[in-house]
């Protein structure tokens, strides 16, 4: 969904221009970011950082579908939480090494994505969202009743194991850099995907589906492809998360979780590459603070949602790109 599209009057023309931000500026910012992330465990709790990275990847994967293809999925928890279950089970019950456990999670999420996408893509817009929600709820009920998920208890005491059989992931530092590596790999995949010919076609579908069809593109296949890609990457985040926290629970497959990732993306900036990272950072940090207090998180989430939709649709990064500083740095019209 084009975040700035309106039907009668237009505030902005949608992002269609080439970015003027020089490659140097981009690389500098990227470099600083990586250095900060690498040094972070010296200043923050590793578990908190790892949680942040997992959700950041989850949100970016989700944004692939929403920001770049224009499809709002209300069922992404299925891929995130489903992969968590698959990975947890594989590592705990079948003795997979962590990298294969996560791989299984990714493949499982991709398979779920293929099925859900296949049905959801038959309708558009609002219906698409409702179908993903309903199918995701169906998966939730399945997880509630299935044996391998252990119902309300979830899968506990998931061993982190040894990466490639050698690196002991129960050591916090090792685990952190593993998660950081996965995050970076995931972001690179998303970045390459978005800038590939496939990604370009997705953007044109988001802007004007009818036109893409008239140009001869099998729009349904592209949408399905984007859906599976998004699901797989969400699964990557979920599988890793299961290893970070060493459990997989029902909370990860609820519609509330699906709503959370939407909020992260909205808050950070739909249709920007790095927006969801900031959105995830904000939400995870906020949740951390509120967890210790008696504050009702749901109410805050709901209010933030409404405020964002009414007043803050471009999100943090989107607003920055459109601001004076952002435009000076050449970020205007950036996607």
């Amino acid at each position, binding site marked *: 969904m084009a975040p700035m599209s309106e039907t*009668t*009057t*237009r505030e902005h*023309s949608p992002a269609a221009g080439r970015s003027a931000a020089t490659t140097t500026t981009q690389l500098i910012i990227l470099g600083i970011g990586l250095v900060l992330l690498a040094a972070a465990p010296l200043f923050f709790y590793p578990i908190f950082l790892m949680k942040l990275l997992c959700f950041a990847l989850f949100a970016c994967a989700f944004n692939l579908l929403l920001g770049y293809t224009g499809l709002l999925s209300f069922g992404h928890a299925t891929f995130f939480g489903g992969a968590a279950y698959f990975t947890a089970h594989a590592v705990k019950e079948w003795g997979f090494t962590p990298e294969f456990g996560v791989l299984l999670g990714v493949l499982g999420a991709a398979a779920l994505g293929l099925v859900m996408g296949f049905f959801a893509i038959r309708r558009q817009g609002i219906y698409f969202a409702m179908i993903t929600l309903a199918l995701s709820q169906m998966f939730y009920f399945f997880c509630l009743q299935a044996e391998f998920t252990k119902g309300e208890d979830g899968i506990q005491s998931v061993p982190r194991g040894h990466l490639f059989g050698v690196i002991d992931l129960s050591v916090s530092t090792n685990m952190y850099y593993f998660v950081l590596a996965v995050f970076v790999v995931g972001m690179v995949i998303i970045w390459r995907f978005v800038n590939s010919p496939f990604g370009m076609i997705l953007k044109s579908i988001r802007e004007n589906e009818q036109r893409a069809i008239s140009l001869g593109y099998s729009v349904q296949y592209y949408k399905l492809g984007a859906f599976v890609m998004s699901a797989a990457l969400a699964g990557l985040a979920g599988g890793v998360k299961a290893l970070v926290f060493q459990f997989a629970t029902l909370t990860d497959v609820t519609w509330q979780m699906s709503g959370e990732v939407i909020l992260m993306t909205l808050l950070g900036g739909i249709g920007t590459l790095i927006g969801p990272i900031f959105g995830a950072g904000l939400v995870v940090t906020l949740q951390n603070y509120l967890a210790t207090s008696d504050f009702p998180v749901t109410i805050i989430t709901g209010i933030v949602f409404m405020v964002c939709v009414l007043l803050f649709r471009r999100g943090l990064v989107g607003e920055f790109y459109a601001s004076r500083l952002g435009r000076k740095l050449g970020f205007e019209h950036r996607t």
Partner: protein
Amino acid sequence: MTPLLQVSGLNAWYGESHVLHGVDMTIGEGETITILGRNGVGKTTTLRTIVGIVRARRGRIDFAGTDMMQVPLHRTAHKGIGFVPEERGIFSTLTVEENLMLPPVVTGGGMNLEEIYELFPNLLERRTSQGTKLSGGEQQMLAIARILRTGVKMLILDEPTEGLAPVIVQRIGDVLGKLKARGMTILLVEQNFRFASRIADRFYLMDHGRMVGDFPVSELPVRMDELHKVLGV
């Protein structure tokens, strides 16, 4: 004669596109005015901007002493302007009679249901049919008829004869003629200027979003060459 409608310096936009570049127009009470012009010069936009459907607009629109620029869309009809759009706008989820009764009566001067059915007997016959089951001509009649009930002072019609058989065009001409005789002010966009010349008092010629000419119907034969050039027919 104080004009009923006075438009000055009207500019309008569709999104980023600047469509009207300072339209000026005056219509006296009881006059029938036709806007002529090629496709795409802004004739329909002019009508829609006067009615208030196009809101991205600047300039002056004075109707019967009221500054229409300040009037919200749902109050325009109450000021006395009735609109028959190009696509006719007959509602498929309403019956013919429901379509007829939809626009609320704004003054007492309109026709009552009996008078309307007298003027349009085929609407009486088909009154319980679904609105869009009528033929194109009948739908056009319905689109005009429903406005007549409301008692508006000025009727705005966008290409009323488009795509209709000559017999129906004749009937529409008769209806408009009758209305004119009753004192209705009519603003028309029409490609068929033989039809228009039967009822119009004056013509406005439009090009590139502004009025480039205005002449009474008596001058039409003299202007034919000029018209052919500008209209490209």
